[in-house]
């Protein structure tokens, strides 16, 4: 009896984990380069974010804090994430200087940002499929009170 319960719990965990992580994981790793520097590490299932945006009560989602230009670009950013996911791996931007090294690349199904500077090391990885769903959900939830983009003469 106990074995069956345990087996059921294990199957549920496996399948639940597969569902949660089927779009990959968002990873954020920040390490300050000083004695006792802060270290932040976040690993979250990417599938959660679009659901969080879709289900969050409107009073907790501060749409007015999103600049108008960013709101207008949301559909294009979603299209970009979609297209990037289809492409082979490549380096999008690389900046090399004596003070820092920055690399933004598409690797696997994720967009990865790597920064190594005098002050800190930053690593961010965002699965592109989840990014697309998030941007689409955000664009869909934007209120319709946005002012017209171009005034006709």
């Amino acid at each position, binding site marked *: 009896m106990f074995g069956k319960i345990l*087996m059921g719990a*294990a*199957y549920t965990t*496996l*399948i639940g*984990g*597969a*569902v949660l*992580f*089927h*779009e*990959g994981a968002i990873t954020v790793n920040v390490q300050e380069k000083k004695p006792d520097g802060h270290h932040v590490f976040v690993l979250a299932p990417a599938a959660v974010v679009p659901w969080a945006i879709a289900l969050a009560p409107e009073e907790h989602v501060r749409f007015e804090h999103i600049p108008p*230009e960013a709101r*207008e*670009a949301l*559909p*294009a950013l*979603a*299209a*970009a994430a*979609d*297209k*990037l*996911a*289809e*492409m*082979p791996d*490549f*380096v*999008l*931007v*690389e*900046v*090399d*200087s*004596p003070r820092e090294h920055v690399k933004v690349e598409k690797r*696997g*199904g*994720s967009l990865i940002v790597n920064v190594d500077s005098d002050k800190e090391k930053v690593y961010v990885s965002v*699965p*592109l*499929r989840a990014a697309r769903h998030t941007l689409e959900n955000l664009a869909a939830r934007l209120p319709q009170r946005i002012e017209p*983009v*171009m005034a006709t003469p």
Partner: protein
Amino acid sequence: MKTHRVLATLAALALFAVMAAPAAAQSETTGKWLHVRVVESGDGESVRVNVPLALAEAILPSLKIKHLQNGKVKIEDHVRVHMEDVDLRAILDAVKTAEDGEYVTVESKNKDNVRVAKRGGYLLVEVRDHDKDGKQREKVDVKVPMTVVEALLSGGKDELDILAAIRALSRHGDTELVSVEDGKTTVRVWIDSKNVTE
């Protein structure tokens, strides 16, 4: 009973592996890439940018920001392309239908000059900037395929069709588009079929 448990466990593990695996690329993109390379000799900084033209093609129709709508830019009132009081758009309209040759030459007292020419299917813009002692300060070379220029002007009277220009560029062969040198900084912009820069 034991066999069923093992099979069920294996099935769950297989399902987990498939769903947790990163999304693989659905198709190989073998189109053109736009590359930008900036090197600053002073502080040793370099920048490399690689953009697949297919990505620009996918984004532009969705981009609706101020003067850029559906891949087209309005040039009246908002974006004016002038070089030393010369209306570049009017020049491009004329060059489009003319034969190969040098069409505009502007020279100043300190040997600054701007040349616009059409040669071998390309629109060439050459700028040389000198200091008061006649020493060259800046050198700019722009080489744009005429097919791209025609695509750029294929939109309405007061707009530039950026999307059509990018499509024309992706059909063109490998070519260097822009080269800028000013003693401290070198900028190169070019297109080819590789997804890396040197």
